[in-house]
């Protein structure tokens, strides 16, 4: 995350090796033009070389295990490939079919956008609120923090199975509870109208994951700001609005981006609980992609879907990044 703190740390880190380099290089180099050897230019090249050397394990790992498959999937997106026989080049056919003849592409994209649009704001608001709550100095607060955080470490499959019970229309916890008040709850997962909100709700249960990050952000807000505000007569609400929130914006910014990217990949709930139904209302993009790849064995088409999703997610992230200067406040960066 590009925070001023991290940048500062990097600067400091890069100072010492170059100073060290300077000393070692100066003396021995004989065969070279001595003038050039002493030039800072040469130093920086060597320093860069060392840098590359140091991160080459990571770089090579990335290129081999990520970069190559990613680029290969770009190639596959222009082919027809059923996994077992070699891919066959079909040009833009996959993309053409996707945009002109595949209603499920639009449906799944719409579902996913709906999910992102609903879950990210809710997660942000709830995450901040819970974090503020968990930031209080109260007896046993650490226990509560743990309790709130726990759901986010449970495996997705287990969570999905658990919530299938909770949300079941006939025998589920929620509807049984509602029945006590004479309310007939909807078929949470079987009603087209409720299936997506149900999954958003489910996702909210794991808000502890974002909460813990907000909590870290909150602990980084200097006490002195609050003290100054109290001296100026600001109430609790005013402090929250004018100090806590602005100081938390870098964290919110980070969580929003992660939330959007995570939201686009929503998969496991639908895969396990609904299989995309009812009436494709939980057919999320990633699930559709998975079905195309592993159920229909149309890897080429699935790759094309993946690339379109990447472009959409990238565009959205870019929009958020561009707007960030308007609402994200970095400590010490406001002097300009």
């Amino acid at each position, binding site marked *: 995350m590009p925070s001023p703190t991290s940048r500062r740390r990097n600067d400091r880190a890069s100072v010492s090796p170059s100073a060290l380099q300077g000393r070692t290089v100066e003396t021995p180099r004989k065969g070279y033009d001595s003038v050039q050897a002493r030039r800072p230019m040469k130093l920086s090249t060597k320093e860069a070389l060392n840098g590359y050397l140091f991160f080459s394990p990571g770089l090579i790992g990335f290129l081999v295990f990520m970069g190559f498959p990613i680029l290969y999937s770009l190639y596959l997106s222009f082919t*027809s490939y059923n*996994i077992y026989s070699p891919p066959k080049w*079909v040009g833009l056919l996959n993309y053409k079919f996707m945009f002109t003849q595949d209603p499920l592409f639009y449906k799944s994209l719409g579902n996913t956008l709906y999910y992102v649009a609903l879950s990210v704001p809710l997660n942000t608001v709830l995450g901040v609120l819970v974090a503020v709550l968990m930031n209080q100095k109260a007896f046993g607060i650490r226990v509560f923090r743990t309790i709130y955080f726990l759901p986010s470490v449970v495996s997705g499959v287990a969570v999905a199975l658990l919530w299938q019970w909770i949300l079941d*229309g006939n*025998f589920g916890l929620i509807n049984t509870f509602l029945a006590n008040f004479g309310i007939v709850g909807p*078929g949470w997962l079987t009603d087209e109208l409720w299936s997506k909100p149900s999954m958003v709700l489910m996702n909210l249960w794991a808000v502890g994951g974002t909460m813990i990050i907000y909590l870290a952000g909150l*602990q980084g807000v200097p006490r002195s700001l609050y003290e100054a505000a109290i001296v100026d007569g600001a109430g609790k609400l005013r402090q929250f609005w004018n100090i806590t929130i602005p100081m938390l914006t870098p964290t919110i910014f980070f969580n929003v981006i992660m939330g959007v990217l995570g939201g686009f990949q929503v998969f496991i709930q639908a895969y396990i609980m609904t299989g995309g139904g009812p009436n494709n209302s939980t057919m999320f993009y990633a699930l559709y992609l998975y079905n195309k790849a592993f159920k229909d064995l149309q890897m080429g088409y699935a790759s094309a879907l993946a690339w379109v999703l990447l472009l959409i997610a990238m565009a959205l992230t870019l929009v958020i990044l561009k707007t960030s200067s308007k609402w994200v406040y970095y400590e010490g960066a406001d002097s300009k």
Partner: protein
Amino acid sequence: MKKKGFILMLSAVLSLSALSACSSKNNNETQPASQGASASPSASAPASEAPNQDPVTISYWHIYTDGPMKELTDQLLADFQAKNPHITVEQLGVNFFDYWTKLSTAMAAGSGPDLALNDTSTVPSRAKTGAILSTDEFIARDGVQLDDYFPVLVDRMKYEGKMYGMPNDTDVRVLYYNKKMFADAGLDPNTPPANWDELEQYADKLTKWNDNKMLDVIGFSPALGNLHFWTLAWTNGGDFWDDEGKPTFNSPQNLEALQWEKKIQDKYGVKAMSAFNSQASALGFSPFIAGKAAMIVDVNNLYSEIQTRAPDLDFGVAPIPYKANPASWSAGFSLELVNNKDDKRAAAAWELMKFLTSAEVQVQIHEASGSLVSNMKAATDPKFMDDPNWKMIVDQMEHSRFIEYIEAMPSWHGNLDPVEQAVLNSGKDPKEFLDGAQKDAENAVANFAKTQ
């Protein structure tokens, strides 16, 4: 953000990712056999070709990760290795949700198992591309009687006239009806509905509304259980593909079946139905077991479920009521020899396949899981056939069909579920939605033709 905060945040993110890494590992739950399953069988393969009795190690992948089937698999493999001391089997059980991804990617990468449990419906996709081996020669050599297996299954294991593996087990859909509710409603508990009209009449008599205009008991709903629109359409003489592989989704018979479903469902209304509707069967809690549905079409597994959960339930099993001809729907698992280009391991894997599909072993599989095994000798073993309900289930295999394998659209039936749901739950027009599905199928077929 202060440094402390940043570090805390960083560590939170790191620990999160570490945890998710753990959990994803758990999802892939590998169940190493006693020898410790290895994903690279090539490493343990002997280098030279040699006579039959040379030691050989093969791998077998399946979906049995817990419960009685896991125990039985362990025991069966021990039995097999005792009988065939030269063969060592490394088994790997992967949970159902992750199995398909793992198996197909491993096979594509050439690191698949020697023997794999797979989906009977999609055999042609693997046979056509040479990913799996024909078992014709083994079957002829060892005199395996294919007549012992359900014909529909043997048929589905064939590609261009050759067998590719052996069928392992299957399922079939039948009508379950509550005999006590029949008697209470003045119906003969020994005469289940045989056709659509009777099904509708009986359903009307069996449905019970409460004072809140909600359903206490539903007579029959096509949306409950595991009927599926295509099964009902088949019982109306409908078909979804013609002999040339062209879609006929909106044929008059199919449309009539969907309209009939809508007619039944509309009696209950969206509101009462959505209150009632549930994915109960996915939870192992069918509304039929709960006494909330008087009749239901469901898979034969429901029978074993009733036996364990509601042994006192007074019920009967009957063929799915039909209009034109009897029909049912089956799916199943096959055992296949993955083409690992190693004759010796393939031969050893065949021995295991032969063992697992033999009548004696399949009897044990049925006893452990209650599943409908592919070997008719086992499925119709006299000790099982004394039970009239089980006999009725087995008899349905005569009329049962599989989903056609259409290369352009392998999960074409998956496109029909949303159509059915839209019509039944959201009051959409059957014709309009069937026409839409027809058009999508035509597009998919036309598009696929261009890629060939």
